[in-house]
């Protein structure tokens, strides 16, 4: 059975192509938000989202629209995060829709995320509605962009909606087209309940709020439901819709989008992608596509002041309530003391977490250089996961090391191809293909180790293409690689905080950079300190920090012993702030700079 008056759609676009502005215009045009209450990027609720102009959390909104045919429609706009870090969340949000509005900037054309998101929507059988935005700009060239859409994405763009989200021109056309082209949802209200959780948020007062799309059956307050993946049961305390504020309704039927509350304590109980069913009359199978997301990038978070460790723990716990994709476990670094090894969906996710900890929870922290997860095949055939260099077993018990790979697409003007290819090559990329998407625009595809990508790829790509490149990637699994763990030794003692994993071919180069930097940063001691980089027992780089030869504060002014003592005590304080490794005092700055070294100087 069809629910003819409902249209569920999302808007997909490359970053900066005007998705949030278009959402704002739709809210205004349908009268969902009074123009007086309008503020830019209304749906982006987090401070960081507004600041960076990105969307991190999905926010659904229900709009009532009276179409030209005189009928009333319910339009559910499900805003999605645009970044590849959150591609699983995007896929679930898209799975809650029947159509997607594909926004392309008419002056910039098709970019990397345009393609990635379009393919994802197409895979989920969504109706794609191409829209050319920013047609008011003199630099727009809609015909060219239409051609790109047809050639690269393979959709008919001949009747793409032309609009300007800025001026509002074309917005009413778009609304009509949504009603006309996005299929109405179908479902069976009397069948066993199946509702998709496409996002969830934590609210201090109500606990976890799940954003759901009903496929079959109905949801109403007081109902006993089961979350199929976790097999937990709850009684629904509230059911409602977003207008865009939460508004309770009696029930949600097939095709409808809304929220449910059920005194769920932590967000980890409400997995994105899970299916909600009725406890008494459960569905025979969950909806397709559920998976548990796993962190792919790890780094250590340490409080700047060591006493703040508990504050950091509490903040991480609170953040995890909001964002179940973050994982963390305590770890202890020789250099930085107690902290947490945290897992993230990607670099952006990591940066956002770091910034939110700082802003929302007031925690000052040091983040170590990020690293990826490695799979290590041991000689006994078992496979272990290593989240940090110290997880690596001894060289002898390793049969094979595998690292995560990504498929990387870079879109850019063809004059930068040489520089971009050189960078990819340097980053151990494997060339997959190159095609012209327009006379002067190229798509370059490489397979690349994620570890190389997270190091500094994005920044370097930006600088070698002067900011003209856009990129997108997808994870393509693990591949065996000739990787080694390089230990850094001070006075023959390995210092765990300085160990790193890299490709065997780069071990010398990176070892040299790290050792050289440490030699600069570690102050001279009373004895010569050898600094070495070694793979297993084999030393590949060695430098010496020369011993101090003279340090005398000679004069004891007229018997002023106190002054002298205070001077010495000040120096002692300075020493205390250094970390003792064996007999060597290492200043905190050395550890911090080391984190930079892996980021900025090694490649």
């Amino acid at each position, binding site marked *: 059975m069809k629910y003819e008056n409902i249209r569920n759609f999302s808007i997909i676009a490359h970053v900066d192509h005007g998705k949030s502005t278009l959402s704002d215009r739709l809210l205004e045009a349908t009268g969902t938000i009074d123009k007086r209450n309008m503020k830019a990027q209304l749906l982006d609720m987090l401070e960081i989202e507004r600041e960076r102009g990105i969307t991190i959390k999905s926010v659904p909104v229900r709009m009532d629209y009276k179409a030209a045919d005189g009928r009333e429609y319910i339009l559910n706009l499900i805003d999605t995060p645009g970044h590849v870090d959150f591609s699983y969340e995007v896929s679930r949000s898209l799975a809650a829709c029947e159509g997607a509005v594909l926004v392309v900037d008419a002056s910039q054309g098709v970019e990397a995320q345009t393609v990635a998101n379009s393919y994802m929507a197409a895979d989920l059988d969504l109706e794609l509605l191409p829209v050319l935005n920013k047609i008011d700009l003199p630099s727009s060239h809609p015909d060219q962009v239409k051609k790109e859409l047809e050639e690269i994405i393979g959709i008919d763009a001949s009747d793409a909606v032309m609009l300007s989200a800025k001026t509002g021109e074309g917005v009413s056309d778009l609304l009509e087209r949504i009603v006309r082209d996005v299929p109405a949802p179908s479902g069976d209200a009397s069948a066993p309940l199946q509702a998709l959780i496409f996002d969830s948020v934590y609210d201090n007062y109500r606990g976890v709020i799940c954003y759901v799309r009903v496929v079959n059956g109905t949801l109403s307050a007081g109902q006993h439901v089961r979350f199929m993946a976790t097999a937990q049961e709850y009684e629904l305390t509230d059911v409602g819709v977003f207008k865009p504020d939460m508004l309770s309704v009696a029930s949600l039927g097939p095709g409808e989008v809304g929220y449910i509350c059920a005194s769920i304590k932590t967000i980890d109980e409400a997995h994105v992608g899970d299916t909600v069913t009725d406890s008494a009359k459960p569905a025979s199978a969950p909806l397709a596509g559920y998976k548990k997301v796993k962190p792919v990038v790890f780094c250590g978070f340490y409080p700047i002041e060591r006493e703040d460790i508990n504050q950091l723990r509490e903040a991480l716990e609170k953040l995890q309530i909001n964002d179940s994709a973050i994982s963390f476990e305590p770890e202890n670094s020789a250099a930085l003391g107690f902290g947490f090894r945290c897992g993230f969906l990607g670099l952006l996710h990591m940066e956002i977490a770091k910034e939110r900890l700082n802003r929302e929870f007031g925690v000052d922290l040091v983040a170590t250089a990020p690293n990826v997860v490695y799979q290590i095949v041991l000689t006994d055939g078992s496979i272990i996961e290593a989240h940090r260099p110290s997880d690596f077993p001894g060289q002898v018990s390793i049969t094979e090391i595998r690292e995560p790979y990504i498929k990387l697409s870079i879109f850019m003007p063809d004059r930068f191809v040489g520089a971009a290819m050189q960078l990819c090559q340097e980053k151990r990329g494997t060339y997959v293909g190159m095609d012209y998407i327009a006379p002067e625009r190229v798509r370059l595809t490489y397979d690349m180790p994620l570890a190389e990508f997270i190091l500094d790829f994005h920044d370097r790509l930006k600088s070698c293409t002067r900011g003209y490149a856009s990129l997108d990637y997808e994870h393509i699994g693990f591949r065996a690689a000739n990787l080694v763990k390089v230990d850094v030794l001070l006075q023959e003692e390995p210092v765990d905080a300085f160990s790193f994993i890299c490709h065997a071919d780069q071990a010398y180069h990176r070892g040299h950079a790290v050792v050289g930097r440490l030699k600069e940063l570690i102050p001279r001691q*009373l*004895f010569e300190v050898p600094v070495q980089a070694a793979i297993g027992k084999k030393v590949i780089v060695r430098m010496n920090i020369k011993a*101090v*030869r*003279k*340090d*005398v*504060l*000679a*004069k*004891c*002014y*007229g*018997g*002023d*012993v*106190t*002054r002298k*003592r205070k001077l*010495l*005590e000040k*120096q*002692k304080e300075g*020493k205390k702030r250094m970390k003792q490794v064996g*007999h060597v005092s290492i200043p905190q700055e050395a550890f911090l700079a080391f984190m930079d070294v892996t980021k900025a100087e090694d490649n």
Partner: protein
Amino acid sequence: MPARSLYIHVPFCERKCNYCAFVSSVPESGERALYLEALSAELSMRAKKHTAPLETCYIGGGTPTMLTPSQWRTLAALLEKNFAFAAGAEVTVEANPNSMTSEHLEVWKEWRVTRVSIGVQSFNDAELSLMGRVHCADEARRAVSRALSFGFDVNADLIFGLPGQTFRSWGLSLREAAHSGLAHISLYQLTPEEGTPWESLGPEELGDGYAPYRWAQWYLPKKGYTQYEIANFARPGHESRHNINYWQNGEYIGAGPAAAGYISGRRYKNIGSLARYAECIKSGALPEAESETLAPEKRAREAAVLALRMSSGICAENFIKEQGLDNYRAVSAAVEKFPHELYEKDACGVRLTKKGMRVANMIWSDII
């Protein structure tokens, strides 16, 4: 045990040298008289509680030769009035080559001065003028020989690590000092102190001081001057007893603006400004700006650092008697963390080797 040492600070200079952070100023009219008057009051306050005859007395500054010979007579009379001196007491005065006159030497000889410490700093004219010293090398030479001719034990202060100083010019100053008949030579490395014109000097301009210091450690003993302390070399029997008292954690009275003292386990420091110092004394109070009595463990660590300045080091027996066995163990354990070539330890105690003295500051800052 009552203090048997006295330090008098004379806070005047003809001009302030570029490297100096001592309390001193160019005296204005009447200031010297004011100083002597206030000092007299302080001495009588401090002497009241004090009975033992003095073994050592040190009159430093500043520039004590900024007092005129007649003012010196007043000062000597003041001291004689307030204190008894032990037989054979060591009395040292500091002098600047250009302001030290024969009359000064006569007054000192008449009184009971035994040592004269001359601020030679260098025998190189270019270096002297760079430092802002008011004398030239020849004046320094004449001052040394004049003081010697009066039969005093003479010390010369020399500075190394000056901007532009070469290893050769340092070697020449050192050689001249060693051949001048001095009983004692003190070496100081230039330290750019805060609040001096040279405070902003960077390490590049200063050099690391290793070579000149190392050279002195090698050269002076050959010429008969033994290193008995970080900065001090002397012909045997001519060590400064006054300074040794500091390093052996002995007590002493300090008097005069900015002077430091150590009485009954309490360290104090007088008010630096002459005007406020005098005012305070007028009101009948001791003119102290700072005062502290250390807890036993801290005091032990301080004593250890002082003792390690000397080549004789920490004497186990004395240290245990004064600071306790636990503190001795803690201190010697701290020293033993360092590479072996930096210290010696035996039944008598712990001491730094010559090499250890060169890096003494890093060792002390661990022990303190």
